[in-house]
């Protein structure tokens, strides 16, 4: 997302690295975040660190998954060996703030057959992986034995079993190798030459290179959660069964070679699965707030049962389940001891869900098992985000500001006088709030001139709320706030460095003269750190971090300036734009959605430099979705200066003319899909 490459996000990441890995790692990390991927030679030249320190820092940062080594693509027949580059992983560094929340999630929700012991072992495994970055299975056994205070041999069997369960649940994954090719940044289609002498040979080479890149990624994607044979076989089965298993496994020769080879397998924590769990928890919390606890219990039953069918982090909806399966799932959850409120009449609750206006859970009839119910994850998350935005608007601009914002959000585009009447405010306050909200990025204003000279007295000014832009702006502000909190925490620690060191070393014999200072310091640190966790939790609802190396999110757009997350998010933005403009409920079934894609739709452009990038992504997304738009018009400026000059593009509705603008424009290479 745009704010994830924002300077404050990079500075927050460097603060995190400095606190956890030291000043040398911080410098190298800051350099990589500022400049993008670098080779070892470039790093040695620009960092100014001695070689030994630089190598140590790169090893530690790779171990902790803050950077990832890639290999640069080479042309066929190149004589030099391929160069290694180091790319910083900003999302993974920001994930480190969530480590405590991940541990708490395992402690609270992991239910093994042996109860508390298995939960402790699972937490110990995840803690060890978070502490050390990457570990082999042998190191994990020793680590867990050390944490539990028992001998290695005693706890190995239980640890092995739980490690397999964690890998199957996707909480733990294999670390990627260092020889993956660097993903290419997305090139805007306008920048590519169209039909000017690109030979078939060049095209074939390009396709081959793309296939090779995908091959690495695909092979890593396939092996990511594959449990190796040495972990799998030793689980108490009889000798005959294990021999049969070995026979089956030996058919896949390549995988056997990988497992039985001398290369160790390093395991690491997979944040994607934790983010999915947090996303589900946020949906369930939203449902319980909007409806009641019983509906939330049913939602959690559906999500628990259908979790394994989710292929992407940002699923729009869960798989449908019939009423019988929901009841079975509820019983399973109660038996395994999860905190689920008992429901007396499941059918009555399900009937109420069918009549839900908010459409957080929907039902569809006509299936073989009767009525099927599913949770609309997207709708729930969007409602949660809307609530966050409204609470921020209400806190910053007061009740009148919130009324104005809501009126505009529901009505679309209005003039100031109409807003004033709807929100029941006077002219002066309304105008002040409107311009205050425009300055804060919560609103957009469009000018509709009556004459060519754009005189203010003869121009209509209409206000609108662009939810995607507001969402982006608030995300930016949240990351900025998190950086401010972390920075203040860092300053407080530096000002009281000796006391902090004494406290951390465990020496609590503090002089009486310093006790008040220590109490003040610990109180301040508690407040700042807990505020940081709360901000991160709020931000995670707004935007869960995505794993950049999964094949499904790897769409060739991974690079320095854009990210796969932005591309994935833009798909939702397109839907939301349609929702805002068209007014009717968002189509839920896949066929209806396809129909809406084919339907011509209008994308309206708001002010601001960020809209340039946002609309570039929107265009990329609609291109990738294979939209068949009959005409594409390129405009030179999102503020549509061309439109003003030519009077050919109407900001409000369909354009009055259908003439191409290609001869006028192309300063910014922004294309806008136009409704005809």
């Amino acid at each position: 997302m745009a704010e994830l490459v924002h300077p404050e996000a990079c500075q927050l990441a460097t603060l995190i690295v400095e606190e956890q890995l030291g000043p040398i790692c911080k410098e190298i990390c800051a350099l990589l975040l500022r400049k993008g991927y670098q080779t070892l030679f470039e790093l040695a030249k620009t960092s100014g660190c001695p070689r030994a320190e630089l190598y140590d820092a790169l090893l530690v940062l790779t171990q902790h998954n803050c950077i990832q080594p890639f290999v640069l693509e080479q042309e066929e027949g190149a004589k030099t060996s391929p160069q290694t580059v180091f790319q910083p992983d900003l999302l993974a560094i920001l994930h480190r703030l969530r480590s405590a929340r991940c541990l708490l999630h395992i402690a609270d929700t992991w239910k093994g057959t042996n109860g508390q012991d298995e939960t402790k072992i699972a937490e110990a495994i995840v803690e060890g992986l978070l502490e050390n970055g990457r570990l082999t299975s042998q190191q994990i056994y020793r680590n867990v034995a050390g944490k539990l205070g028992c001998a290695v041999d005693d706890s190995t069997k239980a640890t092995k079993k739980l490690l397999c369960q964690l890998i199957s649940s996707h909480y733990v994954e294999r670390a990627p190798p260092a020889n993956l090719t660097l993903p290419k940044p997305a090139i805007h289609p306008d920048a590519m030459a169209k039909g000017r002498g690109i030979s078939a040979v060049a095209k074939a080479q390009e396709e081959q290179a793309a296939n090779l890149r995908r091959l690495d990624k695909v092979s890593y994607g396939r092996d990511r959660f594959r449990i190796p044979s040495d972990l799998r076989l030793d689980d108490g089965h009889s000798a005959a069964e294990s021999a049969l298993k070995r026979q089956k496994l030996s058919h896949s020769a390549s995988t056997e070679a990988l497992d039985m080879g001398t290369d160790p397998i390093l395991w690491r924590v997979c944040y994607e699965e934790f983010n999915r769990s947090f996303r589900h928890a946020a949906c369930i919390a939203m449902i319980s707030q909007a409806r009641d606890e019983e509906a939330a219990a049913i939602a959690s039953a559906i999500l628990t049962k259908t979790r394994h069918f989710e292929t992407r982090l940002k699923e729009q909806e869960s798989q449908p389940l019939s009423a019988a399966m929901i009841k079975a799932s509820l019983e399973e959850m109660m038996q395994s001891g999860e905190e689920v409120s008992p429901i007396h009449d499941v059918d009555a609750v399900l009937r109420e869900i069918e009549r839900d206006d908010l459409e957080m859970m929907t039902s569809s009839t006509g299936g073989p098992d009767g009525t099927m119910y599913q949770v609309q994850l997207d709708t729930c998350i969007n409602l949660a985000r809307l609530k966050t935005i409204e609470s921020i608007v209400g806190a910053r601009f007061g009740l009148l500001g919130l009324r104005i914002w809501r009126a505009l959000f529901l009505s679309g585009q209005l003039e100031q006088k109409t807003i004033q009447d709807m929100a029941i405010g006077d002219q002066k306050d309304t105008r002040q709030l409107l311009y205050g909200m425009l300055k804060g990025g919560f609103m957009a204003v469009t000018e509709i001139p009556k004459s060519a000279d754009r005189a203010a007295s003869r121009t209509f000014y209409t206000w609108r709320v662009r939810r995607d832009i507001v969402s982006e702006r608030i995300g930016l502000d949240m990351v900025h706030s998190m950086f401010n909190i972390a920075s203040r925490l860092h300053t407080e620690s530096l000002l009281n460095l000796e006391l902090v060191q004494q406290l951390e070393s465990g020496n609590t014999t503090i002089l009486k003269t310093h006790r008040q200072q220590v109490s003040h310091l610990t109180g301040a640190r508690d407040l700042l750190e807990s505020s940081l966790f709360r901000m991160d939790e709020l931000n995670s609802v707004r935007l869960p971090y995505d794993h950049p190396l999964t094949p499904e999110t790897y769409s060739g757009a991974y690079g320095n300036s854009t990210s796969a997350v932005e591309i994935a998010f833009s798909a939702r933005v397109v839907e939301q734009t349609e929702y805002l403009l068209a007014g009717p409920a968002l189509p839920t079934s896949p066929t209806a959605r396809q129909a809406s894609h084919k339907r011509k739709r209008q994308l309206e452009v708001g002010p601001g430099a960020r809209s340039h990038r946002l609309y570039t992504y929107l265009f990329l997304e609609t291109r990738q979705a294979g939209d068949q738009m009959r005409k594409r018009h390129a405009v030179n400026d999102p503020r549509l200066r061309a439109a003003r000059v030519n009077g050919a593009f109407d900001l409000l509705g369909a354009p009055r003319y259908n003439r191409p603008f290609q001869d006028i424009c192309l300063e910014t290479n922004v294309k806008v899909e136009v409704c005809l």
Partner: protein
Amino acid sequence: MAARGRGRGGFRGRGRGGVGPPVAKDDDGNIVSSQVEGPPPLYPELEKLPKRPEISPRDKRLLARHRALNKFYKNSPYFLKRNHEQSGADGVLEKIDDLAGISKKRKEEQPLQLSDVMILHPKYFPQELLGKNRTAGSSATKQQQFWAAQQKDKDMQGKDLEATFADLAKKEAAAAKAGKDGTGSKNAINEDDEEKRANAEEEVAEEDEEDGYGHDDDDYLQGQDYQDDEEYGDEEAGGDEAYF
């Protein structure tokens, strides 16, 4: 030319006044005091403070885990310090021991290297980083010590700071009582010094609420009132000659 002359004349005319340094004046003509006492504050006071958030039990659990992780990172071989920072007090002691020839003890307590805890394999790390010196092998005993040390750190986390302070306060009160009973014969100080000390204690006691500094039984301020120049002016000891 005329302008130049006018300018010069104007300058000369102004030069006779003896005005002094330029003074800042606000719109009404009043002089604004421009004494700047130090740099502006990094975190100025806020007028509208938000409501202070309460720390819930869930927050405390999160904080405990977060601090345990941070503590591990800071004490692990992954936390890389610069060479000159690594010495510190230990470095000075090492140098003294080296000079004195006692170097065996310190060498046993050398910190863990990266190759002891990380699996440095060419599949996961580029070969150019690994070089020739870093081998995958490392001593098993050191690794065992590293993993076993995880357990010890867990014991330190459960301490509550407030409870610790309460214990320390109790111990200090008990020590103060024992001290008062036994110190009647110990003090062989002049009356002058006693008065001065009493005055100093009163001053310290008045400021106690503000500064939080200790009182009678705090040996931090014991030597505060010691007069080194008692014999100054005493004719037997040399009069009022300066002595160094």
